[in-house]
C-alpha cells in the first residue's frame, strides 16, 4: 500500500529524517513510537505531503506521490489525517465540519453527505452533537468529530498525529476506543502515539524511531518483551 524509499527531510541545517525505508501493507496498523524530536511526526506528515521530503520516494497504491507530476490534492483526498490539536473549523457546526469536504471536493449531494455524516457521528458516539459548534465540545469529543471528518472522505489510509496528547487523561480512552474500533475494519492506519498500552493492543507493527531513523520495526509482543536495540531498551525503561 505505502512504499517509502530512503526519504530524508531537512529543515534549514537540521536533518530531521535521515533516510527511512519501509513498506506498509494494506490494512496494516502501524504505531510509531520514540522520544520527542525523533522525527515521528515529520515522517507521518511526509506521507500526505504536508511536508515535502527533501529526497527519497513515496509510492502509495502504485502512484509515486513524491513525483512533481502528481496531483497532491487528489492524493490527500484518499488519506485522512487526525491532528493533535483537532483543527476543527470553529465557524462551522459539527455536521458542517464533516460534510464540507465531501460536498465541496467530491461534489457529494447535501442529503447524502448529511446522512453519511450522521452515521459517522453515530459511530463515534456523538449523534446528538450534530448541530453544536466545536467550542461547545470537550477535547475528547472534538477529536472524535475530527476522526469522523476524516472518515467522511472515505480514505484508504488514516494518519494520526499524537491524537490523544492534547487531551485530559479521562478523555483519552474514548478517543482510543474509536481508533481501535477502526483497526478492525481493514483500514490502513499509521499512528504516532505516546500511549504504549494502546500501541501494544491496537497495532500490527511497532515502528521505533530515534534521531531521524527507523531504528526498530517489530510486532508489538516482540518489541515490548524483547527490544533489539539498546536505544529502544533505554526508551522503554523510561516510559514503562
Amino acid at each position: 500500500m505505502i512504499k517509502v524509499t530512503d526519504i530524508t527531510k531537512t529543515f534549514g541545517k537540521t536533518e530531521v529524517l535521515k533516510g527511512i525505508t519501509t513498506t506498509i501493507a494494506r490494512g496494516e496498523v502501524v504505531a510509531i513510537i520514540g522520544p520527542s524530536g525523533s522525527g515521528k511526526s515529520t515522517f507521518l506528515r511526509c506521507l500526505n505531503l504536508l511536508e515535502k521530503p527533501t529526497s527519497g520516494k513515496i509510492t502509495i497504491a502504485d502512484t509515486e506521490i513524491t513525483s512533481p507530476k502528481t496531483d497532491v490534492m487528489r492524493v490527500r483526498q484518499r488519506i485522512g489525517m487526525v491532528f493533535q490539536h483537532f483543527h476543527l473549523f470553529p465557524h462551522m457546526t459539527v455536521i458542517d465540519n464533516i460534510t464540507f469536504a465531501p460536498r465541496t471536493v467530491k461534489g457529494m449531494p447535501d442529503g447524502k453527505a448529511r446522512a453519511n455524516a450522521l452515521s459517522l457521528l453515530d459511530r463515534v458516539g456523538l449523534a446528538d452533537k450534530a448541530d453544536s459548534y466545536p467550542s461547545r465540545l470537550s477535547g475528547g469529543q472534538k477529536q472524535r468529530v475530527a476522526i469522523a471528518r476524516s472518515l467522511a472522505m472515505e480514505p484508504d489510509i488514516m494518519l494520526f498525529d499524537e491524537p490523544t496528547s492534547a487531551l485530559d487523561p479521562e478523555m483519552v480512552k474514548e478517543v482510543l476506543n474509536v481508533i481501535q474500533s477502526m483497526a478492525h475494519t481493514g483500514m490502513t492506519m499509521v499512528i504516532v502515539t505516546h500511549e504504549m498500552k494502546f500501541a501494544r493492543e491496537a497495532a500490527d507493527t511497532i515502528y521505533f524511531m530515534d534521531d531521524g531513523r527507523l531504528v526498530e520495526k517489530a510486532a508489538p509482543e516482540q518489541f515490548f518483551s524483547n527490544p533489539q536495540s539498546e536505544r529502544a531498551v533505554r526508551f522503554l525503561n523510561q516510559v514503562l
Partner: protein
Amino acid sequence: MPKLVLKTFSAAIIAALLIVAVAGGLLPSQAFGAAANDAKGTLVMGTSADYPPFESVDAKNGGQYVGLDIDIAKYITEQLGYKLEIINMDFNGLIAALQTGRVDFVMSGMSATDERRESVDFSMIYYSARNSIISTKDNAYDSIEQLNGKTIGVQLGSTQDYFAETIPGASLKKLNKIPDLVQELKTGRVDALIVEDAVAIDYVNANSDLTVEFLPAEADENGYAIAFPKGSAIVNDFNGIITEMKESGKLDSLINTWFPMQKETEGSALGLNLDFSILKDYIPYILRGIYVTLLFTIVSALFGFIWGTVLSFFKLSRIKPLQWFATVYTSIFRGTPLLLQLLLIYYATPQLINYDISPLMAAGLAFGLNSAAYLSETIRGGILAVDKGQQEAAMALGIPYRTMMIKIILPQALRSILPALVNECVALLKESSLVSVIGVQDLMRRASVVQSLEFRAFEALLFAGAIYYVLVLILTSLARLLERRMRRSD
C-alpha cells in the same frame, strides 16, 4: 494557483465595476451632474452654486440652480437653440473642468483676469462688480491703506484673491467658501474680507455686526465674463447674444431682478446664537444627501473590501510579481493624499481613456481603491492570525487552495478583524464629505449650500453633524448585530 488568483481578481474587478455602474445609473442625473457634452444640442455649464445672487441652489424648492448667471445662461442657450445642463462644483475646480472638457462653458461670477486668460477664453463682460471691504463695526476699515499689516480673508482663486495680493503689507487667508470667511471675520481670525459688492451687501444685511466699504471699480478689470475652453467655437455666438441683451435692456432687467436694493433684516446672528427654524424648509433637501452619502459609502466600502481581499491574497501569494504589485500598490495609495487621487481620477480619466466618468463613480473608485490599500493590510493580518492548523486540516482533506481561503480561512480572519472593518466603514462614511469638491451633492455639500443661502454658519453644519452621527450609530449597531451573529459559534 496563478489561474485561480487571476480568476478571483478579474471577478472582483468586474463585480466592483458593475456595482459602481449600477449605482451611477440609479442616481437622478441632477444629483451628480451628468456631463453629456458630446450629445448635439446640449451645452454643459460649470458653476460654483454658492454665490448668491449670481448662482445658488434653491434648496427650499427642489434644489434647482438659480441666480443671475443661471438666468443669463438659460437665455443665451435658448436663443442659440441649445439645451442647458448645469454642473455644480468648487470654484477652484472650474478652470480644470474647462480644460479637461468636462464642461462647455463656465459662468460663476468669474472675472476675466489676465491670469485666467492664459488658460481659457472669455466672452465679453456681462457684469462689472466692485471689490469691497467687509469688516466688523467694532473694528471698521474703509480704505485699502488701513489694511497694511492686517490679515485679510479672500475666496481662494477668486478675483479678490488676485486683487488682495497687491495690497501692501497685508497677509492673506484664503478659504474655499465665503460663509467660512465671514465666520473667520466674526471670530477675529481675520481683520477684514475682500469680496465683491453684491455678495457683501447680502452678508452685511444678514449680519448686523458687519459693515461694508465699496472700493472704486477698476474699469473692466473686475468684469464678469463667461469662460470657455481655449479655441471654443461658440464664443462668438455667445458674444452676439450678450450684445443684443445689452442693447435691448434685457440684461439690465435681469440684473435688477436679482439685486433688490438694501433689504432690512432684523439684527442677526452674533456668535453662537442658533436658530434652527431657518432649516425648516431645507430639511428635505438636506435629507436627500443621506441617500447620496450612503450609496457612495456602500459602493466604496464594498469595492474596497473585495479589492482589498484580492490584494491581501496577492501579498500572501507565492508568486513574486503579484506580491510586488500589491506592495507597490499599497505603498502608492497609502502614500498620497486621498483628495489628490480623487481629483486625478475624476479629471484624468476622460483624457486618458476617453470615458466620461461621473463624479459619483470617480469618487466610488477613488475611495474604493484607496480603502483597498488599507484593508489589504488589515485582511492580511487577519489571515496570518488564523491558526496554521486550519490550513493543514483543510489541505489534509484535499480542499483546493481557493476554496480553503474563501470558505475556511477568510471567515475566521474576518471575525477577528471585524472591529477594524467597522472602523474603516465609519471612516469612509465621514470622509465621503470630500467628494463635494468634484460636485457630488452629498450631505456635507448640501449643508454648505444651505449655509451660504442663509448666511449663517452653524445651523446647517450642526444638523449635518447630527445626521452623520446618527448614521454612524446605526452602522455600529448593525456591526454589533453582525458580530453577535458571527460569535454564535463561541
